[in-house]
């Protein structure tokens, strides 16, 4: 018989090891669907590894893909720490991207040097404002934020499509539903010659560092942790729970909005309705893999990005659908949750 005994103390080595083991388990488990698809398993894994990290180009591509995941991962991590379940990262990302192209494609005449900061600010603001409604509804009326934020994703995506077919449609776009491009001065510069990796990645790293400092070093961070761990005690101690929750909602939405700006101003330059490959949803997995620790979000995002990029390479070479990447990411989430169980409990056989 198997029994679970709660651990009094979780050793730090286990904290570090558990998510890594979970990732390894997720990869191993993905051998099953690979085999079912008739792929040579070892070769498939080899191709995935090579595709994710086998060359400078592959690494740059993985980091490029990790960039939006770091933003959305941070957005999920900070919100979840405050027990605010923001599932609307995808919508906030699109809201940010929309704001970025509106501001960046020539709406505002200003000094070109200010265009990038303006684009980023507009995107963060758009994402934050989108999160304000669900946060207020939760705090004032007790409306479940999981439902409101999730459903807003569809509202925003449909709104973006409407704009791309209408007001924002690029007259020079050959009839495609895409926005006018962001001016050159508004684009995030590439970091490496002839590769897609752009300054958005540095911005993501900076965001991770700042979020970490916020959570670990500031009064607001302590209040956020208190509210997330025990809202009743936080309120009793005179902490403004509503206010803290709304600030967290704004930060979380703002970070997701930055993901949108970074994608649109760092890569294509114009907005289409397929800008995000589920970065908003994958951000939740990233945050869970990172144990909601802002600094750990970076390696977690790079790993998940590597899975996506590697699976693309593999599917091109041996003809297995690249949906396998989504499958691995889903398995990763499951394995992390199971890993958390192993971390909190000791398993006894008798």
């Amino acid at each position, binding site marked *: *018989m198997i*029994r679970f*005994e709660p651990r*009094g*103390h979780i050793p730090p080595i286990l904290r570090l090891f558990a998510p890594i083991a979970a990732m390894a388990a997720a990869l191993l488990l993905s051998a099953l669907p690979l085999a079912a698809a008739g792929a040579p398993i070892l070769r498939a894994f080899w191709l995935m590894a090579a595709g994710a990290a086998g060359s400078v180009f592959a690494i740059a591509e993985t980091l490029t893909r990790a960039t939006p995941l770091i933003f959305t991962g941070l957005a999920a991590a900070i919100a979840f720490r405050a027990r605010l379940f923001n599932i609307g990262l995808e919508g906030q990302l699109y809201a940010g991207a929309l704001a970025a192209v509106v501001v960046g494609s020539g709406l505002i005449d200003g000094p070109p040097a200010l265009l990038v900061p303006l684009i980023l600010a507009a995107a963060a603001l758009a994402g934050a404002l989108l999160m304000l409604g669900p946060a207020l509804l939760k705090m004032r009326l007790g409306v479940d934020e999981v439902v409101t934020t999730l459903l807003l994703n569809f509202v925003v995506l449909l709104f973006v499509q409407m704009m791309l077919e209408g007001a924002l449609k690029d007259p020079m776009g050959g009839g495609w539903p895409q926005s006018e491009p962001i001016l050159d001065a508004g684009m995030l510069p590439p970091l490496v010659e002839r590769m897609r990796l752009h300054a958005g990645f540095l911005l993501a790293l900076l965001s991770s560092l700042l979020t970490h400092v916020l959570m670990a*070093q*500031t*009064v*607001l*961070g*302590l*209040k956020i*942790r*208190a509210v997330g*761990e*025990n809202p*009743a*005690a*936080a*309120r*009793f*101690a*005179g*902490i*403004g729970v509503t206010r803290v929750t709304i600030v967290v909602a704004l930060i979380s939405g703002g970070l997701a909005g930055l993901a949108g700006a970074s994608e649109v101003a760092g890569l294509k330059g114009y907005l289409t309705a397929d800008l995000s490959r589920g970065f908003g949803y994958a951000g939740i997995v990233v945050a869970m893999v990172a144990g909601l620790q802002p600094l750990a979000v970076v390696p977690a995002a790079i790993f998940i990005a590597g899975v996506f990029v590697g699976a693309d390479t593999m599917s091109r070479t041996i003809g297995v659908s690249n949906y396998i990447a989504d499958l691995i990411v889903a398995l990763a989430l499951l394995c992390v949750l199971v890993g958390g169980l192993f971390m909190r409990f000791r398993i*006894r056989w*008798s």
Partner: protein
Amino acid sequence: MTLALSIEGVTKRFGTLVANDRIDLALHRGEILALLGENGAGKTTLMNVLFGHYVADEGSIRVAGPDGALASLPPGSPHAALGAGIGMVHQHFALAESLTVLQNVVLGTRPLSAPHLGLRAARAKLERLMGESGLHVRLNARIANLSVGEKQRVEILKVLYRDARILILDEPTAVLTPQEADGLFATLRRLAASGLAVIFISHKLGEVLAVADRVAVLRGGRKVSDQPIAGVDRRMLATLMVGREIGVSRRTLREPGPPLLVLDQVSMRLPSGRAGLDGVSLTVRGGEIVGIAGVSGNGQAALAALIAGMAEASAGSVTLAGKPLRASPRAAIEAGIARIPEDRHAEGIVGPLSVAENLALESLDSPEVQRLGFLRFDRLRERASQAIAAYDIRCPGPEAPIRLLSGGNIQKVILARVLERDPRLILANQPTRGLDVGAAAEVHRRLLEARMNNVGIVLISEDLDELLALCDRIAVMVKGRLTAPEPVETLTLERLGLLMAGHREEEAA
């Protein structure tokens, strides 16, 4: 006397902590054995080993079968413990609120494949058991509609229904009023007389002396004493339990200061349907302790919420030193009210945060602990170290998560947090509930010390001995109304009981 249970040399370690150190314990049929010890002495661990929740590192357990022959109990199997006739009533009940008493008792006794629940046979058996034990409950009543005392009776009936020969009760009086506790003791004596072996876990000396035949004292994981109740007294048990003499704080007479907290005809409704306040007036002066007695659930929670700033009055006025008190926790703190919450785990602390962070929780916006929004960790640590020394908080250090601390030490952290702000008024809601003798004495000492410093104190407690020992005046809450406070010199336990029971007579009528 025949042996019902024999625990032999049980040792249980958690890492470096030895929770149970070679404990031997014998229990006989028809005997009530009190297991006495402070929080963290190893009582609960030992019972968890007995019940199969933990596997002991050393030692063995033997249980008598129906024929009286001792057989060893397989470790780590709650199923085997149940099968051997061991039944436990936990401090926190495990009842399905939406089911009836009968359904709850039967729950889990029938295999899933059984065609029907066998409720008719169960009802007959239960009625016989109720007759024999004197534990009467309406079998068709829903659990949600029962009082705490009744729920506890259902838990005991559940154990008896499974033909238990050994009944373990974990702190059974923690949730009961004094009257209900007396009823429980009578029941236990009747059950023991019929041959049941009872283990009664407690840290309250009075009830151990009142109900047990024999008392075993645990301290720091070891059994330090095991003797018949006839040869012991309160003082001796306290010393055994704590390992040193406990000083009892005495109240000294003094003239109270000017009115501090004034409640004038305050009414209030609670959304949860619990008793609110109905035209309550109360004046608390500096340098006095005013006690609020009453049967649990008569509006004490509402009164505490009001003074703590957690709830707003719908009518009437609340002033502190002449100024109206705004209904917010922040405002209460800033007005100089030190609040000790009723449920220290739910409202007092944030478990995963460190001792230092919990100590600072009410002062986060003061320059003492922050500069430009950044925490001053050196100050946090320094303040925590001072508090740990001044309040004798036993913990691994200022950085340790507070959830690792025992209840008494958590209460000391809360005391340190609220008292270091030099309050004008203290609201202490059940400040010693669940605490061991040593920690409770420390809380009493701190309250009396604050009283000498002209602090006004509202003490809400269900422990009448505590109220009579500490308070200058005591008022009684009955159905949301507060009687006029009477000086403690003219009050007796009987008089208090009468005031508290006033509402019961009404209810019966």
